[in-house]
């Protein structure tokens, strides 16, 4: 569906994309990750045909999106902003975007009805887009990008600024879309959501893909048998035990010496209650598989950015 080979792009002397290779198949959900300035937006613009790479090749359904309307028609773009006509109703927005995406007049009402149903927007079909809540607007934002039945969907922060229930609904919508065979490329700072949603995660740093695989494989490769561990003691451990905890890789949480957390080997974590039985007494041990957030910290050395 999407094939990027040796893609390079520079703004004046700044290299934004550097010999980048990436593939995306139908029905696959690819999470494109990276801090601000890593080149995500530039890459998406190249895929949309709005930027010409300085070198390399970008192909959508086998064609150059800059030159081929067929390639561009295969793309549905969901911008980060609410890209809707606020004075038009939900149905009118869908009709307008269907027409602008080249859906024939005879097929337009069918496409709109199908999209309304697929995105569960029928109940608000006659309401103006500008009067909808943030969650509904986000859903309509996606609906407008798929009304022409594209083969690939590009989503830039599709859940930014909405509450958890609305986010969950959009996540469910994207899962349903992926099942229809549409290829999805998504950028987001909601790493937990991406972990649930994405078949693959590609980490972008300084214009290059530095890790690209399924989240499971990436996390296994990065952390092996390590687990995210949180230990709560009844009484703060003594200085010697604190040293031992630090050696294991745990850190006190916010200067509270009763709570310690960090990445440690699974076996070592399981042995903690016995090891500290006589000193401090472990109240509970929580073990969790490290997620994309931990991988982010490992790759970029910073906390994951939060969406605005």
């Amino acid at each position, binding site marked *: 569906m999407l094939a990027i080979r040796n893609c390079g792009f520079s703004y004046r002397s700044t290299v934004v994309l550097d010999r980048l290779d990436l593939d995306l198949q139908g029905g696959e959900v690819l999470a494109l990750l990276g801090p601000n300035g890593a080149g995500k937006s530039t890459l998406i*613009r190249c895929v*949309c*045909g*709005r*930027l*010409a790479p300085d070198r390399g090749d970008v192909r959508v359904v086998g064609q150059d999106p800059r030159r081929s*309307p*067929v390639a*561009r*028609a295969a*793309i549905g*773009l*969901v*911008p*980060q*902003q*609410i*890209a*809707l*006509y606020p*004075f*038009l109703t939900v149905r*009118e927005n869908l009709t*307008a*975007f269907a*027409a*602008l*995406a*080249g859906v024939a007049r005879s097929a337009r009402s069918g496409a709109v009805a199908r999209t309304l149903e697929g995105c569960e927007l029928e109940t608000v079909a006659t309401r*103006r887009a500008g009067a909808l809540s943030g969650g509904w607007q986000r859903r309509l934002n996606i609906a*407008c*990008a798929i009304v022409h039945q594209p083969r690939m969907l590009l989503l830039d922060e599709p859940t930014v600024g909405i509450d958890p229930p609305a986010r969950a609904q959009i996540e469910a919508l994207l899962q349903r879309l992926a099942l229809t065979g549409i290829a999805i490329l998504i950028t987001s700072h909601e790493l937990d959501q991406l972990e649930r949603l994405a078949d693959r995660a590609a980490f972008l740093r300084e214009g290059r893909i530095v890790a690209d695989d399924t989240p499971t494989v990436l996390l296994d490769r990065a952390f092996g048998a390590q687990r995210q561990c949180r230990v709560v003691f009844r009484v703060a451990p003594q200085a010697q035990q604190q040293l031992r905890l630090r050696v294991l890789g745990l850190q006190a949480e916010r200067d509270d010496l009763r709570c310690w957390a960090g990445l440690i080997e699974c076996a070592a974590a399981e042995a903690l209650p016995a090891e500290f039985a006589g000193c401090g007494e472990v109240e509970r041990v929580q073990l969790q598989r490290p997620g994309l957030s931990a991988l982010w910290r490992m790759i970029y050395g910073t906390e994951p950015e939060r969406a605005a």
Partner: protein
Amino acid sequence: MIGTVFRVMLLSLVRDRGALLLAFVLPPLMFLVFAEVFSGAGDEDLTLRIAVLDESSDLAGIRLGEALLALDGIEASERSVANRAELEAAVRDGRADAALWIRGRPGSDAGDGPWLEVLGDGSRALAVAVLSGRVQGVLQREFPDLALARASDLVESVLGPYSPAQRAALEQRLQRLSSEASVVERAPAALDFDQRLLGGGRAMDPGVSYYAAAVAILFLMFAAMQGAISLVDERSSGIVDRLAAGPGGIVVVVLGKGLFLTAQGLVQAGLIFAVAWVVYGLAWPTRFVPWSITALLAAAVAAWMGLLLAALCQSRQQAQTASAFVVLILAAIGGSMVPRFLMPIWLRDLGWLTPNAWVIEAWHGTLWRQQSLTELLPAWAVLAGFTLAAMVLALWLSNRNSLSK
């Protein structure tokens, strides 16, 4: 696709009451206000371009013309005018704000009228009044014997006849003045002359057709700029991102907007002139074809200049500031706020660089001067040129922005 963009713009406008009021109610109201306030306004400190026709075959006539043109605020628009038809044409076409027709020796009787006539277009009555005042001043300064003779007659009629000695002294003085200052004969009514306004004798106030045109192009520009700002909104909201990635690209979107804004401008212009027709009796329906061609070009030039400005601006705030600036400057220089003949000459010449001046020229020519299609062609050609240039630039810039944001 263009039709879809048109429909989206139409629905957005129809459902935005503020925009509706701004687009269709405010312009006719403003026109009514401007027409009432300005059609009878005056100003004495202005520079006039005048045409002079001297048929007196007399040195005094030449002196009068030269003295007048030597004054500050008076310039010759026509170096040589052969006959009265040419003189009137210069006034009607707006090449001259007013004209002087010296028909005989100063103070003499030209047979079928006074020796001197000041002519002007009905839509520039103020220019005639100002020129008449300047002529009076020149006559009194350059031909003091005429002024003295007239004053002495007035004194005699009020206070009674002069004594023989007084009469002799007066005659002597008049003769000396005559030989020193002029070669004219003594005539009590020498300072009287005619003022005449051209304009076909229509009952309508000529200011109405001028201000209908002036207000129409001002509001066409204003509304088109506001409408075109939706392009900036759509860029910042991501709609342009979405559409530019589609098969039609951004060019289709901008073309659709241009078409809608042109149609909106046509309706606006129609409303303003309809009000002028109903309230002031403007001869709009009888000149509908040339009016429509001008209206189409005026609406198109406003639409594409608005879209060009929107393509140049990065944010709504920037576009709003820039549009207010551009609209007001074009309106001020182009004659939408104040008739251009009241402006300094350099500003009048600068005005030809604005579409406002050409639109006003074309509409005023259509409705007041009753110009033919051929006579209106130059203004239409200039407006078409403005439109084409703005359209090409707006499309190119929009496409470039969408590709390199």
